[in-house]
């Protein structure tokens, strides 16, 4: 799925968003099926390159129902977890394990907002550097602000500020993902990506603070 296609597809989807499902053909009995296990011959599909949204019966959108996502995750786990399938043939168990690994990976991506966005818009971080001058100057300012935050309270305040900025951009993207141009989406993702890295930095700093505090009390 290329970036341009993703955007076009969302244009079309915006009018009638329906949860999508898998559309497969069972390799064993050649029936058309819409899940990873054939309801007719009970064989698992060999295919492991399913679209994450289809696999989880979600709309191709940033705005997904997390409660439903988890319910579907449990259903898929019941279906494919190795513990549930001790009595099956080895070949079926191998197929199920490969699917189970995919399910774990897909769930990890879909439940995390930034990763979900990156997957939806097929965003490759390494492919481009940040070029937007407004974003670049914001990055400089934020880095300075982080350097100046020394106390735990300051760091926590900084953290909540970044989190707030992240949420704002993410919500804008969520509302407008079908009308944004591809360049606008990439810019938003660049920004979200940077905020996430900054949050990791802040958390590291906070951890160091806690450790230093421990040493003081120990002495």
């Amino acid at each position, binding site marked *: 799925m290329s970036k341009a296609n993703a955007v076009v597809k969302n244009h079309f989807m915006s009018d009638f968003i329906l949860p999508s499902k898998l559309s497969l053909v069972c390799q064993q009995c050649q029936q058309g099926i819409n899940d990873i296990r054939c309801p007719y011959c009970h064989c698992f599909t060999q295919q492991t390159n399913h679209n994450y949204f289809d696999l989880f019966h979600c709309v191709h959108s940033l705005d997904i129902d997390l409660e439903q996502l988890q319910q579907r995750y449990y259903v898929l786990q*019941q279906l494919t977890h190795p513990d*549930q399938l001790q009595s099956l043939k080895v070949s079926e168990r191998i197929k199920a394990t490969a699917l189970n690994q995919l399910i*774990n990976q897909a769930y990890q991506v879909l439940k995390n907002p930034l990763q979900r966005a990156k997957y939806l818009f097929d965003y490759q971080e390494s492919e481009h550097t940040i070029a937007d001058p407004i974003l670049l100057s914001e990055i400089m300012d934020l880095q300075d602000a982080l350097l100046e935050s020394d106390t735990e309270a300051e760091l926590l305040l900084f953290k909540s500020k970044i989190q707030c900025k992240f949420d704002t951009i993410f919500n804008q993207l969520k509302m407008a993902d079908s009308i944004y141009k591809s360049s606008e989406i990439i810019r938003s993702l660049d920004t979200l990506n940077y905020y996430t890295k900054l949050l990791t930095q802040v958390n590291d700093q906070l951890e160091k603070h806690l450790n230093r505090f421990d040493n003081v*009390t120990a002495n």
Partner: protein
Amino acid sequence: MLLQISEPTTQQQNKLPAIGIDLGTTHSLAAIIQNDQCVTLTPLIPSVVGVLNEQLTVGQAVLDQPDTMRAIFSVKRLMGLSVQDVQSQSIHQHVLADQQQEPSSVPRLVLGNQQLTAVELSAEILREVKRQSELKLGHEVHQAVITVPAYFNDSQRQATKDAAKLEGLEVLRLLNEPTAAAVAYGLDQQSSGIYAVYDLGGGTFDCSIIKFNQGIFQVLATSGDTHLGGDDFDQVIMDHMINSKNQYGKLDLIALRLKARDIKHQLSQSESDLDGCLTQEKFNELINPLIDRTLKCVQQALSDAKLTVNDIAGVIMVGGSTRVPYVIDRVGKFFNQMPLTNLNPDEIVAHGAARQAYALTGGTSTLLLDVVPLSLGVELMGGLVERIIERNTAIPARYAKTFTTQQDGQSGLVLHIVQGERDKADDCRSLAHFTFHGIPPLKAGLPKIKVTFQIDADGLLTVSAYEESTQIQQSVEVNATYGLSVQDMRQMLVDSFNHAQVDLQERRIIEACLKGKGLINTVITACQQDQSLLHHNQINEIYVVIDQLESDINTRKLDEIVQGTHTLTQLTHDFADRRLAHALKNLT
């Protein structure tokens, strides 16, 4: 014959039930599910291996002997460690076979005139657990779920599995201890919500955040310290006794350790120990830094799960060390709620293991979704770590990353596989080195080598590498550097055959006991059901033989048991015929 008529339902089962084993630092324990109830199969067996009458012995008998120097404690703390690691530990330093051993080799420990590895010592403990379970159950045990601390790394897990393999046990699953506890608690209480498990055992600390939902146990995050536990509480008491120069300072190290443990137990019950050498207040002060360390792990797990203490519905306390009142107190303050202490902290893990063993052999549909405790990655040029699987990723998992060459025409790539959270490879646990050959001679940066990490449901890692243009695929089962090499394993299996003579005798006795017990049970049931077919003199005669056989079984006299079983079979032969005739008559 008697057996066939009297109880047609108890046919020889093809599949024997699997048991759950808690292989602990200080105690080990086995349990099984029978009629939906959890039954403990053994008493708490001290995880101590010693030499008694020139024989390796496990359990209380070792503690009771006067010569405590000939015993090895807390073997679990040595699992998967190198000589170097052991030298830095005060508890086991003195038993290292040879201080000159290669720092990265598998450490051998002196016990009597033998040198044993931690894996072999653990196998001894498993053997004792298995023996006692078989005696109680009346049949052999082939399969088990064995628990490990959630924070065990790949080497430590592999070592545990190796120990079971040496003892001939098939490991259905290595189950994380806090997860086991959560399963036992969750199923017993039928609860739902997010729970924290605080598991402070003899040698390890684990904290897991687990969500219970419709029979599914989903581990959200786990954290811990594999070298923090009740042993360390003993250590601070020992240090205190040595420093305060009281009468105990002169005891040898192991005796001092046992005394310290004794004092700790007393202080968990009362304000001061019997000899008045330590008050509870002073003890609390001494262990305070240790509890701080556990709470830091708890905080880590909570942040990883993106939760706060307010999201936690209950705190399940596991492990003997959670009997210390100050621990309960601090944990309660941290979570703003009273921890759940109405469970037996020593037994809950074994019960969870038994539940899982039952589920895995088709008993129930409980589903556990566990995570990998530590990140896994490879070392890059310059010694930095590229993480491939992040900690707290749900397992089974499969993740891949593509790497390339540094120099033109480079034909091989050394993959150094490491586990840990630090950025530099030197600070992480080294798991394996794996060389990938056969890269086509291309310019640097052009070859694409896809490295795939796979973790199975036991949390064990397999690594494979794939070069696209040549389609060469190579894979390695990560036999951890500090675990056992295939050669070591083979040597041990050879050794175990050499020991087989002793084992064979032992096995014969067990088999004879089982056979005798089985016959006694059948005869007694038959006598109760068809008393009318026998003269009371005949019944008395049968009971005399049974009494004799029972006492022989208890004293484990092989020849007498075989003889007694034979006599009893002969004696009841006629009775069996009559029962058969009687049963047939009733049928027609």
